[in-house]
Protein backbone atom coordinates (compact mmCIF):
# COMPACT_ATOMS: atom_id res chain seq x y z
CA UNK A 1 0.00 0.00 0.00
CA UNK A 2 2.74 2.39 1.03
CA UNK A 3 4.77 1.43 -2.00
CA UNK A 4 1.93 2.19 -4.38
CA UNK A 5 1.36 5.61 -2.74
CA UNK A 6 5.00 6.53 -3.24
CA UNK A 7 4.82 5.33 -6.82
CA UNK A 8 1.79 7.49 -7.37
CA UNK A 9 3.18 10.69 -5.89
CA UNK A 10 6.70 10.33 -7.25
CA UNK A 11 6.36 8.48 -10.53
CA UNK A 12 3.10 9.89 -11.84
CA UNK A 13 4.32 13.48 -12.33
CA UNK A 14 7.64 12.29 -13.76
CA UNK A 15 5.84 9.93 -16.14
CA UNK A 16 3.51 12.71 -17.27
CA UNK A 17 6.47 15.00 -17.90
CA UNK A 18 8.35 12.37 -19.90
CA UNK A 19 5.29 11.49 -21.96
CA UNK A 20 4.55 15.16 -22.66
CA UNK A 21 8.10 15.89 -23.82
CA UNK A 22 8.23 12.72 -25.92
CA UNK A 23 4.91 13.59 -27.56
CA UNK A 24 6.11 17.13 -28.21
CA UNK A 25 9.30 15.86 -29.84
CA UNK A 26 7.34 13.32 -31.89
CA UNK A 27 4.83 15.87 -33.18
CA UNK A 28 7.51 18.40 -34.08
CA UNK A 29 9.48 15.80 -35.99
CA UNK A 30 6.50 14.04 -37.57
CA UNK A 31 4.84 17.20 -38.87
CA UNK A 32 8.08 19.02 -39.60
CA UNK A 33 6.99 21.99 -37.51
CA UNK A 34 9.11 25.06 -38.18
CA UNK A 35 11.25 26.27 -35.26
CA UNK A 36 9.50 29.67 -35.22
CA UNK A 37 6.30 27.84 -34.30
CA UNK A 38 7.61 25.38 -31.74
CA UNK A 39 11.16 24.10 -31.75
CA UNK A 40 11.65 20.48 -30.75
CA UNK A 41 12.73 19.69 -27.15
CA UNK A 42 15.97 18.29 -28.48
CA UNK A 43 16.56 21.52 -30.40
CA UNK A 44 15.97 23.60 -27.27
CA UNK A 45 18.24 21.31 -25.27
CA UNK A 46 20.92 21.71 -27.92
CA UNK A 47 20.69 25.50 -27.89
CA UNK A 48 20.63 25.44 -24.09
CA UNK A 49 23.91 23.53 -23.81
CA UNK A 50 25.46 25.55 -26.62
CA UNK A 51 24.92 28.92 -24.97
CA UNK A 52 24.98 27.56 -21.42
CA UNK A 53 27.58 29.97 -20.04
CA UNK A 54 25.75 32.99 -21.44
CA UNK A 55 22.46 31.77 -20.00
CA UNK A 56 24.07 31.31 -16.58
CA UNK A 57 25.53 34.83 -16.71
CA UNK A 58 22.17 36.34 -17.62
CA UNK A 59 20.42 34.24 -14.98
CA UNK A 60 22.88 35.53 -12.36
CA UNK A 61 21.96 39.13 -13.18
CA UNK A 62 18.21 38.51 -13.07
CA UNK A 63 18.56 36.14 -10.10
CA UNK A 64 20.49 38.71 -8.04
CA UNK A 65 17.82 41.35 -8.71
CA UNK A 66 15.15 38.87 -7.65
CA UNK A 67 17.08 37.85 -4.54
CA UNK A 68 17.65 41.43 -3.39
CA UNK A 69 13.97 42.14 -4.03
CA UNK A 70 12.95 39.02 -2.11
CA UNK A 71 15.08 39.87 0.93
CA UNK A 72 14.25 43.58 1.04
CA UNK A 73 10.55 43.13 0.24
CA UNK A 74 10.26 40.17 2.60
CA UNK A 75 11.85 41.86 5.60
CA UNK A 76 9.90 45.07 5.00
CA UNK A 77 6.68 43.09 4.73
CA UNK A 78 7.27 41.31 8.05
CA UNK A 79 8.28 44.48 9.91
CA UNK A 80 5.41 46.57 8.61
CA UNK A 81 2.98 43.74 9.43
CA UNK A 82 4.25 43.63 13.04
CA UNK A 83 3.68 47.38 13.42
CA UNK A 84 0.33 47.22 11.64
CA UNK A 85 -0.78 44.43 13.98
CA UNK A 86 0.20 46.46 17.04
CA UNK A 87 -1.32 49.70 15.73
CA UNK A 88 -4.83 49.23 14.38
CA UNK A 89 -4.82 52.71 12.85
CA UNK A 90 -1.73 51.90 10.81
CA UNK A 91 -3.28 48.75 9.38
CA UNK A 92 -6.38 50.73 8.43
CA UNK A 93 -4.26 53.38 6.75
CA UNK A 94 -2.33 50.75 4.83
CA UNK A 95 -5.39 48.70 3.82
CA UNK A 96 -6.30 50.63 0.63
CA UNK A 97 -2.65 51.03 -0.38
CA UNK A 98 -1.93 47.32 -0.07
CA UNK A 99 -5.21 46.42 -1.74
CA UNK A 100 -4.19 48.66 -4.64
CA UNK A 101 -0.69 47.17 -4.77
CA UNK A 102 -2.19 43.68 -4.80
CA UNK A 103 -4.35 44.29 -7.88
CA UNK A 104 -2.23 46.62 -9.98
CA UNK A 105 0.48 45.43 -12.32
CA UNK A 106 3.51 46.59 -10.35
CA UNK A 107 5.80 46.23 -13.36
CA UNK A 108 3.80 49.08 -14.87
CA UNK A 109 5.73 51.28 -12.45
CA UNK A 110 9.02 50.23 -14.09
CA UNK A 111 9.45 53.35 -16.26
CA UNK A 112 8.84 55.54 -13.23
CA UNK A 113 11.48 53.75 -11.19
CA UNK A 114 13.96 53.91 -14.03
CA UNK A 115 13.47 57.67 -14.00
CA UNK A 116 13.82 57.87 -10.22
CA UNK A 117 16.84 55.61 -9.76
CA UNK A 118 18.55 55.85 -13.14
CA UNK A 119 17.97 53.61 -16.15
CA UNK A 120 21.56 52.35 -16.14
CA UNK A 121 21.24 50.72 -12.71
CA UNK A 122 19.35 47.64 -11.57
CA UNK A 123 17.86 49.46 -8.56
CA UNK A 124 14.52 50.06 -10.25
CA UNK A 125 14.08 46.33 -11.02
CA UNK A 126 15.05 45.34 -7.50
CA UNK A 127 12.49 47.74 -6.09
CA UNK A 128 9.81 46.33 -8.38
CA UNK A 129 10.65 42.81 -7.21
CA UNK A 130 10.66 44.05 -3.60
CA UNK A 131 7.19 45.62 -3.94
CA UNK A 132 5.86 42.46 -5.60
CA UNK A 133 7.21 40.40 -2.69
CA UNK A 134 6.08 42.89 -0.05
CA UNK A 135 2.38 42.40 -0.81
CA UNK A 136 2.05 38.63 -0.07
CA UNK A 137 4.57 38.89 2.79
CA UNK A 138 2.67 41.71 4.48
CA UNK A 139 -0.75 40.09 3.99
CA UNK A 140 0.39 36.62 5.09
CA UNK A 141 2.33 37.85 8.12
CA UNK A 142 -0.52 40.08 9.27
CA UNK A 143 -2.94 37.20 8.81
CA UNK A 144 -0.61 34.94 10.79
CA UNK A 145 -0.21 37.43 13.62
CA UNK A 146 -3.99 37.67 13.86
CA UNK A 147 -4.48 33.91 14.17
CA UNK A 148 -3.84 34.01 17.91
CA UNK A 149 -6.30 31.86 19.82
CA UNK A 150 -8.29 33.68 22.51
CA UNK A 151 -7.03 31.22 25.13
CA UNK A 152 -3.42 32.18 24.37
CA UNK A 153 -4.28 35.87 24.50
CA UNK A 154 -5.90 35.35 27.91
CA UNK A 155 -2.88 33.42 29.07
CA UNK A 156 -0.48 36.21 28.12
CA UNK A 157 -2.69 38.75 29.87
CA UNK A 158 -2.86 36.59 33.00
CA UNK A 159 0.96 36.53 33.00
CA UNK A 160 1.01 40.33 32.74
CA UNK A 161 3.32 39.83 29.73
CA UNK A 162 4.56 42.97 27.97
CA UNK A 163 3.71 43.66 24.32
CA UNK A 164 7.29 42.80 23.37
CA UNK A 165 7.08 39.46 25.22
CA UNK A 166 3.73 38.60 23.66
CA UNK A 167 5.19 39.35 20.23
CA UNK A 168 8.32 37.30 20.78
CA UNK A 169 6.81 34.32 22.59
CA UNK A 170 3.35 34.05 21.08
CA UNK A 171 2.58 36.11 17.98
CA UNK A 172 5.74 35.72 15.92
CA UNK A 173 6.24 31.96 16.45
CA UNK A 174 2.55 31.49 15.67
CA UNK A 175 2.92 33.45 12.44
CA UNK A 176 5.94 31.48 11.20
CA UNK A 177 3.99 29.09 8.91
CA UNK A 178 2.15 32.05 7.36
CA UNK A 179 5.38 34.00 6.88
CA UNK A 180 7.02 31.03 5.18
CA UNK A 181 4.03 30.55 2.90
CA UNK A 182 4.26 34.23 1.99
CA UNK A 183 7.95 33.77 1.26
CA UNK A 184 7.18 30.82 -1.03
CA UNK A 185 4.60 32.83 -2.98
CA UNK A 186 6.96 35.82 -3.02
CA UNK A 187 9.88 33.84 -4.43
CA UNK A 188 8.09 33.13 -7.72
CA UNK A 189 6.82 36.71 -7.91
CA UNK A 190 10.32 38.08 -7.33
CA UNK A 191 11.76 36.16 -10.28
CA UNK A 192 8.89 36.94 -12.62
CA UNK A 193 8.88 40.65 -11.65
CA UNK A 194 12.63 41.05 -12.02
CA UNK A 195 12.40 39.32 -15.40
CA UNK A 196 9.49 41.31 -16.78
CA UNK A 197 10.87 44.62 -15.53
CA UNK A 198 13.59 44.10 -18.11
CA UNK A 199 10.99 44.40 -20.91
CA UNK A 200 10.39 48.01 -19.87
CA UNK A 201 13.97 49.17 -20.43
CA UNK A 202 17.13 49.42 -18.37
CA UNK A 203 20.42 47.46 -18.59
CA UNK A 204 20.36 44.68 -21.21
CA UNK A 205 22.35 41.86 -19.59
CA UNK A 206 19.53 39.90 -17.93
CA UNK A 207 17.45 36.88 -18.97
CA UNK A 208 14.33 38.86 -19.86
CA UNK A 209 16.15 41.07 -22.32
CA UNK A 210 17.93 38.02 -23.74
CA UNK A 211 14.58 36.37 -24.53
CA UNK A 212 13.19 39.40 -26.33
CA UNK A 213 16.33 40.13 -28.30
CA UNK A 214 16.65 36.49 -29.40
CA UNK A 215 12.99 36.51 -30.49
CA UNK A 216 13.45 39.84 -32.26
CA UNK A 217 16.42 38.34 -34.13
CA UNK A 218 14.26 35.39 -35.24
CA UNK A 219 16.45 33.04 -33.19
CA UNK A 220 13.42 31.21 -31.77
CA UNK A 221 15.22 28.11 -30.58
CA UNK A 222 17.64 30.38 -28.72
CA UNK A 223 14.74 32.34 -27.19
CA UNK A 224 13.28 29.08 -25.92
CA UNK A 225 16.62 28.13 -24.42
CA UNK A 226 16.58 31.40 -22.45
CA UNK A 227 12.98 30.70 -21.44
CA UNK A 228 14.15 27.34 -20.15
CA UNK A 229 16.82 29.19 -18.17
CA UNK A 230 14.12 31.44 -16.68
CA UNK A 231 12.02 28.39 -15.81
CA UNK A 232 14.96 26.80 -14.01
CA UNK A 233 15.71 30.05 -12.17
CA UNK A 234 12.09 30.30 -11.02
CA UNK A 235 12.06 26.64 -10.00
CA UNK A 236 15.29 27.17 -8.05
CA UNK A 237 13.82 30.07 -6.07
CA UNK A 238 10.60 28.19 -5.44
CA UNK A 239 12.41 24.97 -4.53
CA UNK A 240 14.71 26.67 -2.03
CA UNK A 241 11.91 28.58 -0.27
CA UNK A 242 9.64 25.51 -0.27
CA UNK A 243 12.55 23.54 1.20
CA UNK A 244 13.07 26.14 3.93
CA UNK A 245 9.36 25.98 4.69
CA UNK A 246 9.31 22.18 4.94
CA UNK A 247 12.46 22.14 7.06
CA UNK A 248 11.25 24.82 9.47
CA UNK A 249 7.82 23.25 9.91
CA UNK A 250 9.30 19.83 10.59
CA UNK A 251 11.78 21.28 13.08
CA UNK A 252 8.97 23.05 14.85
CA UNK A 253 7.42 19.70 15.70
CA UNK A 254 4.07 19.37 13.96
CA UNK A 255 1.56 22.11 14.57
Amino acid at each position, binding site marked *: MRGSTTARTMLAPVALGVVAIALWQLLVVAFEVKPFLVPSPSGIAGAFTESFSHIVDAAKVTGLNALIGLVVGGLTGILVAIFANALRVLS*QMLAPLVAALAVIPIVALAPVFYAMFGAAAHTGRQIIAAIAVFVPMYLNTLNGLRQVEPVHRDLMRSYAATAEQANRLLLLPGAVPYVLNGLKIGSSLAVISALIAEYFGGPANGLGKAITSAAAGSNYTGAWAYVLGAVLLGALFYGVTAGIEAWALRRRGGS
Partner: protein
Amino acid sequence: MRTARAQSILWGVVGVLGVAALWELYKAVAPDEGVTVGSITVLPRTTDIAMPHIWDMVTRLFDPVTRAADADVLWWAVLQAAAFSLGIAALGWVLGVISGMLLALLMQRWLTAESAVLPWVVLSQTVPLIAIAPLVKRWGTNIHVGSFQWENWMSVAVIASYLAFFPVAVSALRGLKSPPQADTDLFHAYAAGWWTTLIRLRLPASVPYLMPALKLAAANAVVGTVVAEVSIGLGGGIGRMIIEFAATASGDPAKTWAPIFGAVLIGLLSAGLVALLGRGLGRFRRGEVPA
Protein backbone atom coordinates in the same frame (compact mmCIF):
# COMPACT_ATOMS: atom_id res chain seq x y z
CA MET B 1 -20.97 48.60 13.11
CA ARG B 2 -21.64 51.42 10.65
CA THR B 3 -19.35 53.84 12.48
CA ALA B 4 -16.55 51.25 12.52
CA ARG B 5 -16.86 50.95 8.75
CA ALA B 6 -16.89 54.70 8.27
CA GLN B 7 -13.85 54.96 10.50
CA SER B 8 -11.85 52.40 8.54
CA ILE B 9 -12.72 54.17 5.27
CA LEU B 10 -11.66 57.47 6.83
CA TRP B 11 -8.31 56.04 7.94
CA GLY B 12 -7.87 54.51 4.50
CA VAL B 13 -8.24 57.95 2.95
CA VAL B 14 -5.76 59.31 5.50
CA GLY B 15 -3.33 56.58 4.43
CA VAL B 16 -3.56 57.52 0.75
CA LEU B 17 -3.19 61.23 1.54
CA GLY B 18 -0.26 60.35 3.81
CA VAL B 19 1.61 58.75 0.93
CA ALA B 20 0.98 61.80 -1.24
CA ALA B 21 2.23 64.06 1.57
CA LEU B 22 5.36 61.91 2.01
CA TRP B 23 6.00 62.14 -1.71
CA GLU B 24 5.87 65.95 -1.68
CA LEU B 25 7.81 66.19 1.59
CA TYR B 26 10.62 63.99 0.30
CA LYS B 27 10.67 65.92 -2.96
CA ALA B 28 10.98 69.21 -1.08
CA VAL B 29 13.63 68.07 1.40
CA ALA B 30 15.90 65.62 -0.45
CA PRO B 31 18.61 66.74 -2.92
CA ASP B 32 17.84 66.75 -6.65
CA GLU B 33 20.18 63.89 -7.47
CA GLY B 34 18.84 61.71 -4.64
CA VAL B 35 21.19 59.98 -2.24
CA THR B 36 23.88 57.81 -3.68
CA VAL B 37 26.13 55.34 -1.92
CA GLY B 38 29.12 54.68 -4.13
CA SER B 39 27.58 54.72 -7.60
CA ILE B 40 24.23 53.27 -6.56
CA THR B 41 21.29 55.55 -6.07
CA VAL B 42 19.67 54.40 -2.81
CA LEU B 43 17.18 57.23 -2.45
CA PRO B 44 15.47 58.47 -5.62
CA ARG B 45 16.14 61.64 -7.52
CA THR B 46 13.70 64.43 -6.85
CA THR B 47 13.79 66.41 -10.07
CA ASP B 48 10.45 67.18 -11.68
CA ILE B 49 11.29 64.56 -14.30
CA ALA B 50 11.83 61.77 -11.77
CA MET B 51 9.18 62.81 -9.27
CA PRO B 52 6.58 65.21 -10.68
CA HIS B 53 4.34 67.11 -8.25
CA ILE B 54 1.12 65.31 -7.33
CA TRP B 55 -0.94 68.28 -8.52
CA ASP B 56 0.89 68.23 -11.87
CA MET B 57 -0.10 64.57 -12.28
CA VAL B 58 -3.72 65.43 -11.58
CA THR B 59 -3.98 68.61 -13.68
CA ARG B 60 -2.20 66.88 -16.57
CA LEU B 61 -5.19 64.53 -16.83
CA PHE B 62 -7.34 67.42 -18.02
CA ASP B 63 -5.01 68.59 -20.78
CA PRO B 64 -5.02 67.11 -24.31
CA VAL B 65 -2.90 64.02 -24.95
CA THR B 66 -0.70 65.77 -27.55
CA ARG B 67 -0.38 69.20 -29.06
CA ALA B 68 -2.23 68.01 -32.16
CA ALA B 69 -5.42 69.96 -32.73
CA ASP B 70 -7.72 66.93 -32.75
CA ALA B 71 -6.16 65.26 -29.66
CA ASP B 72 -8.47 63.89 -26.98
CA VAL B 73 -8.26 65.10 -23.43
CA LEU B 74 -5.84 62.83 -21.51
CA TRP B 75 -8.22 61.26 -18.98
CA TRP B 76 -10.57 60.23 -21.77
CA ALA B 77 -7.76 58.55 -23.71
CA VAL B 78 -6.65 56.74 -20.55
CA LEU B 79 -10.19 55.63 -19.83
CA GLN B 80 -10.56 54.21 -23.34
CA ALA B 81 -7.29 52.32 -23.04
CA ALA B 82 -8.33 51.06 -19.60
CA ALA B 83 -11.65 49.78 -20.96
CA PHE B 84 -9.82 48.01 -23.78
CA SER B 85 -7.41 46.29 -21.37
CA LEU B 86 -10.17 45.45 -18.90
CA GLY B 87 -12.11 43.72 -21.69
CA ILE B 88 -9.15 41.52 -22.61
CA ALA B 89 -8.43 40.82 -18.94
CA ALA B 90 -12.07 39.79 -18.42
CA LEU B 91 -11.87 37.36 -21.32
CA GLY B 92 -8.62 35.97 -19.94
CA TRP B 93 -10.22 35.65 -16.51
CA VAL B 94 -13.17 33.69 -17.86
CA LEU B 95 -10.91 31.34 -19.82
CA GLY B 96 -8.64 30.90 -16.81
CA VAL B 97 -11.52 30.20 -14.42
CA ILE B 98 -13.04 27.62 -16.77
CA SER B 99 -9.77 25.78 -17.33
CA GLY B 100 -8.87 26.00 -13.65
CA MET B 101 -12.23 24.52 -12.64
CA LEU B 102 -11.98 21.72 -15.20
CA LEU B 103 -8.49 20.87 -14.03
CA ALA B 104 -9.63 20.84 -10.40
CA LEU B 105 -12.53 18.52 -11.25
CA LEU B 106 -10.18 16.20 -13.10
CA MET B 107 -7.80 16.10 -10.14
CA GLN B 108 -10.62 15.55 -7.67
CA ARG B 109 -12.12 12.73 -9.73
CA TRP B 110 -8.94 10.72 -10.24
CA LEU B 111 -6.30 10.57 -7.55
CA THR B 112 -3.66 9.58 -10.06
CA ALA B 113 -4.49 12.65 -12.11
CA GLU B 114 -3.95 14.80 -9.02
CA SER B 115 -0.57 13.20 -8.32
CA ALA B 116 0.50 13.56 -11.93
CA VAL B 117 -0.85 17.04 -12.68
CA LEU B 118 -0.65 19.02 -9.43
CA PRO B 119 3.17 19.27 -9.27
CA TRP B 120 3.14 20.59 -12.84
CA VAL B 121 0.41 23.08 -12.01
CA VAL B 122 2.54 24.38 -9.15
CA LEU B 123 5.65 24.39 -11.29
CA SER B 124 3.81 26.25 -14.03
CA GLN B 125 3.73 29.31 -11.79
CA THR B 126 7.49 29.50 -11.72
CA VAL B 127 7.39 29.52 -15.52
CA PRO B 128 7.24 33.12 -16.60
CA LEU B 129 4.89 32.50 -19.52
CA ILE B 130 4.81 36.24 -19.91
CA ALA B 131 8.41 35.79 -20.93
CA ILE B 132 7.36 33.85 -24.00
CA ALA B 133 4.84 36.47 -25.00
CA PRO B 134 7.06 37.47 -27.93
CA LEU B 135 6.95 33.83 -29.04
CA VAL B 136 3.21 33.50 -28.55
CA LYS B 137 2.77 36.41 -30.94
CA ARG B 138 4.76 34.55 -33.55
CA TRP B 139 2.46 31.53 -33.23
CA GLY B 140 -0.63 33.60 -33.69
CA THR B 141 0.42 35.06 -37.02
CA ASN B 142 0.54 31.52 -38.45
CA ILE B 143 -2.95 30.46 -37.52
CA HIS B 144 -5.50 30.73 -40.31
CA VAL B 145 -8.61 28.59 -40.18
CA GLY B 146 -10.96 29.57 -42.97
CA SER B 147 -11.83 33.22 -42.48
CA PHE B 148 -10.67 33.12 -38.88
CA GLN B 149 -7.59 35.16 -38.30
CA TRP B 150 -5.67 34.98 -35.02
CA GLU B 151 -5.31 38.49 -33.65
CA ASN B 152 -2.71 39.83 -31.25
CA TRP B 153 -5.30 40.63 -28.60
CA MET B 154 -6.20 36.94 -28.50
CA SER B 155 -2.58 36.13 -27.57
CA VAL B 156 -2.83 38.67 -24.76
CA ALA B 157 -6.02 37.04 -23.52
CA VAL B 158 -4.40 33.60 -23.58
CA ILE B 159 -1.48 34.84 -21.49
CA ALA B 160 -3.86 36.53 -19.03
CA SER B 161 -5.81 33.27 -18.69
CA TYR B 162 -2.60 31.37 -18.00
CA LEU B 163 -1.91 33.60 -15.01
CA ALA B 164 -5.53 33.41 -13.86
CA PHE B 165 -6.00 29.65 -13.93
CA PHE B 166 -3.50 28.74 -11.19
CA PRO B 167 -5.18 30.12 -8.05
CA VAL B 168 -8.51 28.79 -9.33
CA ALA B 169 -7.20 25.27 -9.94
CA VAL B 170 -5.47 25.00 -6.58
CA SER B 171 -8.22 26.57 -4.46
CA ALA B 172 -11.03 24.78 -6.28
CA LEU B 173 -9.29 21.46 -5.67
CA ARG B 174 -8.93 22.28 -1.97
CA GLY B 175 -12.58 23.30 -1.87
CA LEU B 176 -13.83 20.20 -3.70
CA LYS B 177 -11.89 18.05 -1.25
CA SER B 178 -13.02 20.07 1.78
CA PRO B 179 -16.19 18.17 2.80
CA PRO B 180 -15.33 16.00 5.81
CA GLN B 181 -15.63 12.23 5.77
CA ALA B 182 -18.93 12.42 7.66
CA ASP B 183 -20.52 14.39 4.79
CA THR B 184 -19.25 12.12 2.04
CA ASP B 185 -20.31 9.08 4.09
CA LEU B 186 -23.78 10.58 4.33
CA PHE B 187 -23.99 10.96 0.55
CA HIS B 188 -22.64 7.46 0.16
CA ALA B 189 -25.38 6.21 2.47
CA TYR B 190 -27.94 8.00 0.25
CA ALA B 191 -26.48 6.01 -2.67
CA ALA B 192 -25.72 9.31 -4.39
CA GLY B 193 -23.39 9.07 -7.38
CA TRP B 194 -20.31 11.18 -8.09
CA TRP B 195 -22.33 13.72 -10.06
CA THR B 196 -24.98 14.23 -7.37
CA THR B 197 -22.30 14.49 -4.70
CA LEU B 198 -20.53 17.08 -6.82
CA ILE B 199 -23.59 19.25 -7.39
CA ARG B 200 -25.10 18.97 -3.92
CA LEU B 201 -22.02 18.78 -1.75
CA ARG B 202 -18.63 19.45 -3.29
CA LEU B 203 -19.41 22.50 -5.42
CA PRO B 204 -21.31 24.37 -2.68
CA ALA B 205 -18.57 23.46 -0.21
CA SER B 206 -15.90 24.84 -2.53
CA VAL B 207 -17.40 28.34 -2.79
CA PRO B 208 -15.64 29.72 0.32
CA TYR B 209 -12.32 28.54 -1.11
CA LEU B 210 -13.15 29.77 -4.59
CA MET B 211 -14.09 33.38 -3.85
CA PRO B 212 -10.63 34.59 -2.74
CA ALA B 213 -9.13 32.62 -5.64
CA LEU B 214 -11.42 34.34 -8.15
CA LYS B 215 -10.29 37.71 -6.78
CA LEU B 216 -6.66 36.71 -7.05
CA ALA B 217 -7.28 35.40 -10.57
CA ALA B 218 -8.77 38.76 -11.56
CA ALA B 219 -5.70 40.61 -10.29
CA ASN B 220 -3.45 38.15 -12.13
CA ALA B 221 -5.44 38.53 -15.34
CA VAL B 222 -5.02 42.32 -15.21
CA VAL B 223 -1.29 42.04 -14.60
CA GLY B 224 -0.99 39.49 -17.40
CA THR B 225 -2.92 41.69 -19.82
CA VAL B 226 -0.89 44.83 -19.16
CA VAL B 227 2.46 43.08 -19.38
CA ALA B 228 1.54 40.97 -22.39
CA GLU B 229 0.38 44.11 -24.22
CA VAL B 230 3.87 45.48 -23.73
CA SER B 231 5.80 42.40 -24.76
CA ILE B 232 3.56 41.53 -27.70
CA GLY B 233 3.36 45.12 -28.78
CA LEU B 234 -0.43 45.33 -28.84
CA GLY B 235 -1.57 48.95 -29.11
CA GLY B 236 -4.75 50.45 -27.72
CA GLY B 237 -4.41 49.24 -24.12
CA ILE B 238 -2.93 50.55 -20.91
CA GLY B 239 0.29 48.52 -21.16
CA ARG B 240 1.35 50.00 -24.48
CA MET B 241 0.30 53.44 -23.32
CA ILE B 242 2.65 53.22 -20.32
CA ILE B 243 5.59 52.51 -22.59
CA GLU B 244 4.66 55.20 -25.12
CA PHE B 245 4.21 57.89 -22.47
CA ALA B 246 7.34 56.85 -20.60
CA ALA B 247 9.29 57.54 -23.79
CA THR B 248 8.22 61.19 -23.61
CA ALA B 249 8.85 61.38 -19.85
CA SER B 250 11.73 63.84 -20.06
CA GLY B 251 9.53 66.44 -21.76
CA ASP B 252 6.24 65.66 -20.05
CA PRO B 253 6.90 63.70 -16.81
CA ALA B 254 3.41 64.04 -15.33
CA LYS B 255 1.92 62.33 -18.39
CA THR B 256 3.69 59.05 -17.48
CA TRP B 257 1.50 58.74 -14.42
CA ALA B 258 -1.83 58.94 -16.26
CA PRO B 259 -1.78 55.35 -17.63
CA ILE B 260 -0.45 54.11 -14.26
CA PHE B 261 -3.55 55.57 -12.63
CA GLY B 262 -5.47 53.78 -15.39
CA ALA B 263 -3.81 50.48 -14.41
CA VAL B 264 -4.74 51.04 -10.75
CA LEU B 265 -8.27 51.77 -11.86
CA ILE B 266 -8.74 48.51 -13.79
CA GLY B 267 -7.10 46.57 -10.97
CA LEU B 268 -9.55 47.98 -8.44
CA LEU B 269 -12.47 47.70 -10.86
CA SER B 270 -11.82 44.02 -11.53
CA ALA B 271 -11.55 43.30 -7.80
CA GLY B 272 -14.82 45.17 -7.29
CA LEU B 273 -16.58 43.20 -10.04
CA VAL B 274 -15.55 39.89 -8.50
CA ALA B 275 -16.66 41.09 -5.07
CA LEU B 276 -20.04 41.93 -6.61
CA LEU B 277 -20.23 38.40 -8.00
CA GLY B 278 -19.45 37.06 -4.53
CA ARG B 279 -22.41 38.83 -2.97
CA GLY B 280 -24.73 36.71 -5.05
CA LEU B 281 -23.21 33.58 -3.53
CA GLY B 282 -23.52 34.86 0.02
CA ARG B 283 -25.23 31.83 1.49
CA PHE B 284 -22.39 29.52 0.50
CA ARG B 285 -19.75 31.76 1.98
CA ARG B 286 -20.00 31.13 5.70
CA GLY B 287 -16.57 30.62 7.14
CA GLU B 288 -14.55 31.84 4.20
CA VAL B 289 -10.84 31.10 4.15
CA PRO B 290 -8.27 33.34 2.51
CA ALA B 291 -6.48 31.88 -0.51
